[in-house]
């Protein structure tokens, strides 16, 4: 159950920080969107340009990243999906190394070997995978290690609503509950598993219901509400840190762009007026109405974000490409 406006006692500073995080995530995705398409003209060629390959941008899903990661430190683990940038950024990944890896440079997180879907940041225990739902099991292992090491560190595992129908999801929920692991499972329900709407992939309306079936608490957040995500995550994270085991948060969010860049989205019937669902202008208005944010401050926040992002992009573009002679390096330690 989400609290009403009146009941919420979120600090002004927390609220503005949530906004700032979302803006930084969006600024990064906007820049990658620009860079990705810049050299794939006149006809879209997926393998061309400085950022080749598939690109899955998270624009619209920032409330999940901001609301959850506000409760994490760099010592907590987070596993994400093929759509990882907002989570990496909100969790504190270095923007330069992130950008450099997306550009396939030697200075990237993976020395150019992983790319945008396979980001590994040991400093923040962040990782992501391009295989649907398969980020859940390793998060269990990170939580397992943290627990045995006697810490209150936790692991957050994020997937999409489509992944909730993959075997790894179900196995992971059961095992985490059975072994009382300090995990927070997050499901980003953006309505679409590529082109298939949730209604035609999932037998029940909410994955929060499935949580109970696996012996844990589950909650579903509607309306991409960053503050509701923040509050639900506070409870789930506290529960995990206190040794009370895993829980699940599903967030009904929005995928503003295609599944991947180049996706014409002809299958999509919710594009009319989709801009009105953009969570960032909506939250800006919320904060403005509350007297916490004026236009000047909002502009300043965006400019700061853009500056950081452009610095990262420039760093990436100026970085060397990996030497082909080293293609087989780092297979084994």
């Amino acid at each position, binding site marked *: 159950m989400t609290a009403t406006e009146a009941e919420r006692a979120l600090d002004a500073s927390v609220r503005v920080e949530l906004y700032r995080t979302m803006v930084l995530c969006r600024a990064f995705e906007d820049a990658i969107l620009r860079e990705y398409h810049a050299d794939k003209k006149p006809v879209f060629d997926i393998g061309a340009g400085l950022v080749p390959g598939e690109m899955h941008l998270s624009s619209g899903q920032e409330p999940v990243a901001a609301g959850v990661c506000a409760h994490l430190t760099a010592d907590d683990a987070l596993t994400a999906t093929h759509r990882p940038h907002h989570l990496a950024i909100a969790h504190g990944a270095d923007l330069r190394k992130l950008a450099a890896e997306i550009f396939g440079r030697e200075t990237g997180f993976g*020395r150019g*070997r992983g790319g945008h879907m*396979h980001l*590994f940041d040991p400093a923040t225990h962040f990782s992501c995978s391009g295989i649907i739902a398969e980020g859940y099991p390793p*998060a*269990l292992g990170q939580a397992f290690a943290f627990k045995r090491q006697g810490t209150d560190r936790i692991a957050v595992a994020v997937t999409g609503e489509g992944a909730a129908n993959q*075997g*790894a999801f179900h196995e992971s929920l059961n095992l985490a509950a059975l072994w009382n692991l300090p995990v927070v499972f997050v499901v980003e329900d953006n309505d679409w598993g590529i082109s298939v709407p949730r209604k035609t992939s999932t037998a029940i309306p909410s994955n929060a219901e499935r949580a109970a079936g696996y012996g844990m608490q589950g909650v579903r957040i509607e309306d991409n509400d960053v503050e509701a995500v923040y509050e639900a995550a506070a409870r789930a994270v506290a529960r995990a840190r206190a040794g009370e085991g895993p829980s699940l948060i599903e967030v009904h969010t929005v995928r503003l762009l295609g599944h991947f860049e180049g996706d014409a989205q002809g299958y999509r019937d919710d594009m009319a007026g989709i801009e009105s669902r953009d969570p960032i202008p909506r939250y800006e208005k919320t904060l403005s109405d509350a007297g916490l944010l004026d236009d000047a401050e909002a502009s300043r926040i965006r400019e700061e974000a853009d500056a950081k992002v452009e610095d990262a992009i420039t760093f990436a573009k100026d970085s060397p490409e990996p030497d082909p002679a080293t293609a087989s390096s*780092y297979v*084994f330690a």
Partner: protein
Amino acid sequence: MTVMETQSTDTAGTRRLTTAKAMVEGIAQEMERDPSVVYLGEDVGKYGGIFSSTAGLLDRFGEDRVLDTPISETAFIGLAIGAAVEGMRPIAELMFVDFFGVCMDQIYNHMAKIHYESGGAVKVPMVLTTAVGGGYSDAAQHSQCLWGTFAHLPGMKVVIPSTPHDAKGLIVSAIRDDNPVVYMFHKGVMGLPWMAKNPRATDVVPEEPYEVPIGKARIAREGSDITVVSVSLSVHHALDVADRLAADGGIEAEVVDLRSLKPLDRDAILTSVAKTGRLVVVDEDYLSYGLSGEVVATITDVDPGMLRAPVERVAVPDVPLPYARSLETAVLPTRDRIEEAIHRVVKG
């Protein structure tokens, strides 16, 4: 550089173990030494492992270190990966290698690739143990070897002990290795009381911990007339045949036990075939697109002129392993098939 080891002595009073017990001893000694070593899998606790891979470990180390899992290979192998990433040295057991279908993504797309994808920043120091092999009528879904499949995919080491000595030394090496190591133990070499066994399944095993190097083959038997390259249970069959041929036919076969498929000791293969000029490969995995072809390519990539006769590959044909004993025996690389192949290559 190949290694010739005297693995069997007749010294009275020297301690002998089955392959299974040697494997367990290696694990136990590492668990004593390193508290971050845990063993998880199905029926590894009280049961001691379906093929005795963990017998006695629960009693000695408790439920905190020897963990029975639900039937959730994706989840618990993935869990081992995450634990390894965070500094532990877990051992996860895939009960039968044939079950890899339900969890291969965690194995080949995650366990094996994380180190590379992270540019070396993240290590996955775990061991994946698994039982392989047939010959006791367990049919198509419970009798496979599949080491060719695992060795084919980049990023994981693959070791396959055939003797008690190597079973202990390789599990110790695997646990200490900072890379993911797939440790494949053939049910027929374990020396289990409830399955037909080769006398070589019991042998002298040093009591102290020791490592057998990963990536180095062993010359199980020296010879000058023909090289027989093999792995796992087939090494024992090859040795039985070699003994018979030396006694009856005057053929001296050199038997090479590969022990590791990844890394593969290509030098050992080349050195032996350079000496004998004749090669038979014995491989209980499927014939096509696998280990036996890789051994042959090792020679032909370097110098096909080394071979005085075509190579014979004694492998399981591209057929699901049959249930009926007469059919299963017909497809396995039996002693008779090995001996016939040696005769043909020696004559050829």
